[in-house]
């Protein structure tokens, strides 16, 4: 097997409360009425990557997710669901499933990714350069996604981007700063700049949390650097910054691919001529390894960190905030409808045949109405997603909102820019604006809420 895929599906993310509850872990949050995890799984399936390990934080979430996967993908994918303790970080999660990793390269994907960038392309880039790590970068979404590890909502919902340094060919990753570092001045090592000559520093790229690792390297780093918790914050920066004086053993990994490399290391001049003979120009890594004038005092160890930059037309967002949740739902049935996998009606919306609409009820474009949902008379739905088996009264306005399954909405309600979770009851004449209503909550009749988060108190 070539690539082994690890999907980090997270657990009960705290940043997404009240959307996430004991019954609904983050990975199962609905995006256009299907769990967000399904987008990643189907993307992988399309790329013929069917051997997956889905890593879930906490046993209970693993049970829920495992149950769903086995019902939905029983014949299509070979999925193993592994539960890991909470709060151990992405690197910790990989460390925990270390013994499952066997393939020569590992593709790590965040389970909350909704995108149409082919992972196969990332894998191919990784292979082509024989890199130790390849990371996928995408343009920053306009709405401004925020960073937070899929492992747990440690990061505050602060708006900051990655700072990425690339070589002139935009193939190699030379500098990476993320998290709080982004707030500081950009400091770039001169030593690497000297080798490359020119570095493109970008603030408009986002680390999409899809990585291809060389397995031996990943395991070596995870074992040696026990303090590393996060792939994004610890492992990736470590690999990037040590790329020109690698501490990795790389035990013959490189020479596996190319038998010439072995004797080449003994006679660098031959390598140089080989490199020059190969039509492609050698990368600065190889030149650095050779040292100036084609010889060096001691062979320098290098490793390559590559990037795959998704084109601007690709859609790529991570569901890691409530804002992102709303945005993704809107996009998937709107601008990025090709991801949803549904076929849209002539009115550019999806109304399940089993749904019942009252008279004078209109459902606008870029809307979705799940199976078995009923709507009363004179309702209006715009740019919203309504789940399955909802009962909606008359004179209800739903704009820019997400209503999950089994929600009951009384007559005369107005819902705007809000998220209403499953089994919620909205009594008559409720007005919600920019609210989140947690699962099973009952909103009293006639109440008005604006920008609030309503949820049952959990014990």
């Amino acid at each position, binding site marked *: 097997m070539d690539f082994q895929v690890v999907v980090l599906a997270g657990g009960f993310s705290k940043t997404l409360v009240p959307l996430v509850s004991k019954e609904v872990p983050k990975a199962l949050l609905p995006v256009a009425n299907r769990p967000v995890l399904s987008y990643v799984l189907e993307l992988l399936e399309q790329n013929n990557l069917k051997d997956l390990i889905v890593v879930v934080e906490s046993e209970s979430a693993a049970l829920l997710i495992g149950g769903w996967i086995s019902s939905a993908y029983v014949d299509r994918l070979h999925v193993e669901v592994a539960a890991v303790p909470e709060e151990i970080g992405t690197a910790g999660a990989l460390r925990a499933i270390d013994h499952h990793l066997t393939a020569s390269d590992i593709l790590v994907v965040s389970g909350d990714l909704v995108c149409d960038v082919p992972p196969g392309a990332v894998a191919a880039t990784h292979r082509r350069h024989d890199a130790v790590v390849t990371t996928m970068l995408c343009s920053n979404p306009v709405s401004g996604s925020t960073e937070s590890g899929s492992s747990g909502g440690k990061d505050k919902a602060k708006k900051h981007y990655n*700072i990425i*340094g690339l070589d002139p060919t935009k193939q190699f990753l*030379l*500098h*990476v*700063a993320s*998290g*709080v*570092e*982004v*707030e*500081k*001045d*950009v*400091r*770039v*090592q*001169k*030593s*690497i*700049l*000297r*080798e*490359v*000559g*020119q*570095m*493109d*520093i*970008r*603030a*408009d790229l986002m680390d999409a949390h899809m990585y291809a690792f060389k397995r031996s390297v990943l395991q070596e780093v995870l074992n040696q*650097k026990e*303090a*590393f*918790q*996060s792939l994004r*914050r*610890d492992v*990736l*920066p*470590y690999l*990037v*910054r040590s790329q020109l*004086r690698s*501490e990795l053993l790389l035990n013959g990994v490189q020479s596996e691919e190319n038998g010439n490399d072995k004797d080449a290391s003994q006679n660098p001049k031959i390598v140089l001529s080989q490199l020059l003979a190969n039509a492609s120009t050698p990368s600065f890594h190889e030149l650095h390894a050779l*040292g*100036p*004038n084609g010889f*060096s*005092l*001691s062979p320098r160890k290098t490793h390559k960190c590559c990037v795959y930059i998704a084109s601007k037309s690709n859609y790529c967002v991570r569901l890691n905030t409530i804002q992102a949740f709303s945005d993704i739902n809107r996009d998937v049935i709107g601008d990025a409808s090709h991801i949803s996998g549904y076929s849209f009606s002539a009115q550019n919306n999806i109304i399940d045949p089993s749904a019942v609409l009252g008279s004078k009820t209109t459902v606008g474009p870029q809307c979705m109405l799940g199976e078995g949902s009923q709507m009363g008379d004179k309702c209006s739905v715009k740019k919203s997603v309504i789940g399955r088996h909802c009962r909606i009264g008359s004179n209800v306005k739903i704009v820019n909102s997400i209503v999950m399954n089994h929600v009951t909405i009384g007559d005369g309600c107005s819902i705007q820019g809000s998220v209403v979770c499953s089994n919620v009851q909205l009594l008559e004449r409720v007005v919600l604006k920019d609210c989140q209503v947690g699962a099973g909550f009952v909103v009293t009749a006639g109440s008005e809420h604006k920008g609030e988060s309503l949820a049952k108190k959990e014990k």
Partner: protein
Amino acid sequence: MVAKKSGRNRGGGGGGTAAATEVSVEELARVPLQAILLADSFATKFRPITLERPKVLLPLVNVPMIDYTLAWLESAGVEEVFVFCCAHAKQVAEHLENSQWFAQPNFSVTAIESNNAVGAGDALRLIYEQNVIRGDFVLVSGDTVSNMSLAEALGEHKERRRKDSNAIMTMVITQSKTSPTTRQSRLGTDELFMAIDPDTKQLLYYEDKSDKGTVSLDKTLLSDHPSIYLHNDKQDCYIDICSPEVLSTFADNFDYQHLRRHFLKGLLDDDIMGYKIFTHEIQSNYAARIDNFRSYDTVSKDIIQRWTYPLVPDVQFVGNSSAKLDRQGMYRASVVGQSRSAQVGPFTVIGSGTTIGSQSQISNSVVGEGCKIGANVSIEGCYIWHNVTIEDGCQLKHAIVCDGVVIKSGVILEPGVVLSYKVVVGQQFIVPAYSKVSLYQQPIKQDSDEELEYADSSSGFMDASSLSGLPDKLKEESTIQLSESQLQAASEVGSGGVGFIWSTSEGSHEEEWRHSVAPIPAAKLLEIMHTSNNELEVVQQDGNLPPSGELERDSVTANSNDYDDDDVDVKDDYEVFENEVEATFKRALEENIKEDDVILEVNSLRLSYNLATADCSGALFYSMMKSALSAPHPSPSDLVKNAATVITKWKKLLKYYLPSIDEEVGLLISSSDPDEIEVILKFEEMCLESAKEYSTVFVQILHLLYDKDIIQEEAILNWASEKEGADETDKLFVKQAEKFIQWLNEASEEED
């Protein structure tokens, strides 16, 4: 010759400069393109030659540098040039007068002389005062060799100016990768780090002199520019297209001198004015500045190899007698007396009137006019100026030989030698590598500030303008004047030689090999590679994580070096504080200041450095012991006595900072007073490091402190117990004080 013509024909209007822009209104209001040429680099790199001649008049492939610059400016469509002369201003002015530059149609050259400018800033301020610049102008120095067309850069500049009046300068840069080992470009300049916005070409960062291992970009830059290119592969051509605001900026900031270090930095850092600097990269054209001997060598070779076309020896661009190009890049003037058996190798220029003896070999060199080269001479990679006599059997390698030098037979010049004007090297003498020989003695007091080089040149013994360009009689006189010192100097460059060998160990200068005309020896390269490799390893071993992807401050990893950084800062702060306290205390001793006042001062110091009271007691105690140490003490017992007097005298001061066990607080609570332990620890540290004399009398002093009630017994006991677990070496003093501690222990038990 072709280019020469085209330069002339430029009459048709600005040679397609900014005038090419379609707006005809602009055409009407068009001002002639002006240029400021700084005929003084305000640096000392070409000493000792520049003691006698200004750098811009030094011959570069037999033509004075300034002529290259002027020829280029003329061909590029500049119509008015202001030549700012400072060092040897008379010589420059004279040269301009004698040359044809004043006679050119559509090209006016004006010399502006000044004797007291110490930097480019002064020059520009002077020109600003004269009010001669009316529009955009080109700012270059007189040592620039280029064949670039200014039209494109000017057009870009004007276009930007129209959109944004803050875009006041466009810098010309070119591709050039610095060597990974020596970290200098082929022109011998230091590596340069620039940050440029790839879309607008705005310059965001410029760093040419720094030892830091990282480039630090302000975080706000990235919020304004989504993408920034960080360059290490570009070279600054020192050709700037400026708007008049540049001059007024210099006028406003009277402390700006250096164009890059002050002006550019100031503009980049300061965002009050909002001025912006942009870059223009030239691709196929040539532009370089001769900044040091290495670039002199490089540019000379480039000229010979015709990269600077049409500014090449066989094209007569100005005042140079044209030479004929033979195969293998050999240029030969029409009148050369060359022996049949002499071999003149590739890439060599021979000036007219030069004679070469039999069996001599010349390669990769430039030989000026009227030189006499004897038989069996080998010359490789040398720059021999005019009227030089080289006698038989000499060997010259990578040397610069100025006008009128006489090299007697059998002399060997090792690589990198510079022989200044009229030096005579005695027979069979071997001039060591990288030595610089001049008739003038090396100025004894080297002014480390290189900006000031020419400030003193107009005064004192080396009024060099009197040397050249004066009637021969006078010249002779000046030589006679020199003769006395010549007698002493004779021995320095062999018997019959005249000249002083300048010592190369000038602290302020880079190592000689970096900037000499000689190629860097392989051994040196290996050495640098070793050190750079070691550096890398050291960086690695330190665990001093480089900043790229530096671990976050709040991440739980123990590896984070942020904490170390903080520690260092605190320590530094403390050291400064300690020094301050010491100074305060010293003054108190000398001027007999009252304790209360000292306390007041120390307190304010403590507040300003944000330290704890415990630090005060430590620092005060430290300064007391220091003062005791500074008093004469023939024997250790005297030292103790000294200490005793100081401590007795200033007991009150120490006690203030050591809140002793007050009766009311009770004896029990105070058992571990950190301040007192601090004093003991401080003392221990002193004994080990700064004041080893105390180590022998450690116990006595400790006892003294105890007697004087400065340190309570609990503190000593605590100190002892604290040290219990320490290393053997750390316990040295505890062991010394063992008896004392034991005694204390017993005493306290008795009390109980």
